[in-house]
């Protein structure tokens, strides 16, 4: 990643020092890192195999052998949480990628061109915003078939206007600056200026928005898979685990408690991380927070 131009000259090392002195950032970073490591470890090792059903071990309460208990098929919940983390992260991350990859260029293009192009793109944005995101995501996944890929697309589509808006607003605030004028005087075209000067200067805002959308994506994925529209069994997902838990809450409350806590902790970590980054990059905002 390029170092954003707004950073002070004293370099990355001092920036990192400042970052870790910020409590939101520190806590958010540690939580996010832990979740990411757990998800990565699940590729190599889980305490138990999540695809093997051992009915004799079903709905066991948390114990030393099964830290978070087992589900109605006798699967180890800790292992399912680990593999589920992988699924949640993948869906939300790719959905953010889709939103950024399409939305940011669109927004910057609208800002650079202005006039009718800008107006048309913004009306298109309004159009997407008029559709309740969750309802539309449900429609897309229900109509085109449930599964992780369609969940990614459904969530990703609704990230596009969000990033288009941030990209456009950011770019519009940079265009009138003097160094842009200088770049234009030096004979650079709009496209070149956008890539060389606008993008690095709005990278901060995009990073903050990216973290927020990442957290929202995790919540959205959980909702979709709770309705049976996300990742399909035997692939464990946090939302699906909550669905399975609902009818068994009296006999096995841990089945509902653990996946829910996993979602809350992950989303909390990402939100704290986003707040922290926003604080560090724009100290003025801290006074408002």
């Amino acid at each position, binding site marked *: 990643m390029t170092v954003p131009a707004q950073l002070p000259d004293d370099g990355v090392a001092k920036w990192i020092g400042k970052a870790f002195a910020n409590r939101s950032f520190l806590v958010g970073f540690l939580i996010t890192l832990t979740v990411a490591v757990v998800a990565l470890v699940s590729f190599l090792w889980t305490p138990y195999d999540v695809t093997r059903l051992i009915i004799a071990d079903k709905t066991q309460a948390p114990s030393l052998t099964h830290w978070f208990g087992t589900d109605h098929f006798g699967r180890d919940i800790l292992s399912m949480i680990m593999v589920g983390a992988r699924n949640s992260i993948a869906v939300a991350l790719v959905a953010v990628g889709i939103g950024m990859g399409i939305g940011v260029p669109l927004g910057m293009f609208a800002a650079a061109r202005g006039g009718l192009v800008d107006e048309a793109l913004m*009306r298109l944005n*309004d*159009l997407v*915003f*008029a*559709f*309740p995101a*969750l*309802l539309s995501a*449900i*429609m897309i996944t*229900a*109509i085109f078939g449930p599964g992780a890929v369609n969940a990614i697309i459904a969530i990703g589509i609704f990230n596009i206007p969000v990033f288009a808006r941030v990209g456009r607003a950011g770019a519009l605030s940079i265009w009138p600056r003097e160094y842009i004028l200088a770049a234009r005087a030096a004979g650079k075209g709009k496209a070149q200026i956008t890539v060389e000067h606008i993008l690095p200067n709005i990278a901060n805002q995009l990073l903050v928005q990216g973290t927020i959308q990442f*957290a929202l994506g995790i*919540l959205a994925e*959980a*909702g979709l898979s*709770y*309705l049976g529209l996300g990742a399909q069994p035997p692939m464990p997902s946090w939302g699906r685990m*909550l669905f399975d*838990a*609902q009818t068994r*809450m*009296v006999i096995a*409350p841990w089945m*509902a*408690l653990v*996946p*829910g806590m996993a*979602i*809350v*902790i992950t*989303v*909390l970590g990402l*939100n*704290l991380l986003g*707040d922290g980054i926003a604080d560090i990059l724009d100290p003025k905002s801290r*006074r*408002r*927070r």
Partner: protein
Amino acid sequence: MSAYLAKRLGIAAVTLVLASLVVFSVLEIVPGDPARLMLGMNASDAQVEQLRDQMGLNAPLIVRYLDWIGGLLTLDFGRSYTYSVPVIDLVAERIAVSLPLALVALTLSTAIAIPVGLYSASRRGEAGDAVAMGAAQLGVAIPNFWFALMLVYLFAVWLRWVPAGGFPGWSAGMWPALKSLLLPAVALALPQAAILARVTRSALIEVLNEDYIRTARAKGMPYRAVLWRHALRNALIPVVTIMGLQFAFLLAGTIIIENVFYLPGLGRLVFQAITQRDLVVVESVVMLLVATVIAVNLIVDLTYAIVDPRLRSRS
């Protein structure tokens, strides 16, 4: 003012027409023939063809689109394939659940969020502020349907104060009906309240730095009065925006919560209609929800213009 009004109305109308085109075309490319679905796999091709004619499915695209729009405008939404009743009746019945639920949830969330936001903003940086904002941070991270499950476990399964789900209908009396909407409303309201409290706090803090606040304080106005009379009123714009968005979300976004509590609301209707390919219901309800979102946004925009005259001249 009238130019502003005309422009906002124009944009809303264009968005509405585009949205209807999107809904119509999406449902047009949906796999699965409704006539075939209704008759079952054993029906002959001729029977299916006859039903398609009857349902008007063989008419040209443009005719069907205009028919549909005409129907929507005259409140004739067609008949549901699965329920065999007019869609408008279904919708009316379901709105009687979803609208009160949304209103109760919005009232609850506002009643929690505004005082918390005021408290936090006036004690910025103190311990009370940190606790309130910590709680809000947590509230934003909680998925409402999981929170709903926890509420069911605590209040319905364990304490047995309220039913775990279902809806007795308004005919069963005001109190039993409201009682079954209580947990869903709380589940919907809390995460919303967390967001609203954060917005209220930051909007207030912005306003509290203004010169006129200092002036009001300097002339001896009590802090409490300044907070309520000057600060809150000036901080309302972002707060109202978020409330508008949340109302639209509450009407449409209750799909999951209605599933948790088995409530016969609009969200559950559209979810079941989608899974059963009851496209007449899907397209009407989705269009209705989209129209509501657009209308709410329009009202919010117009509210700004009334609250803040500067915005009228800007466009």
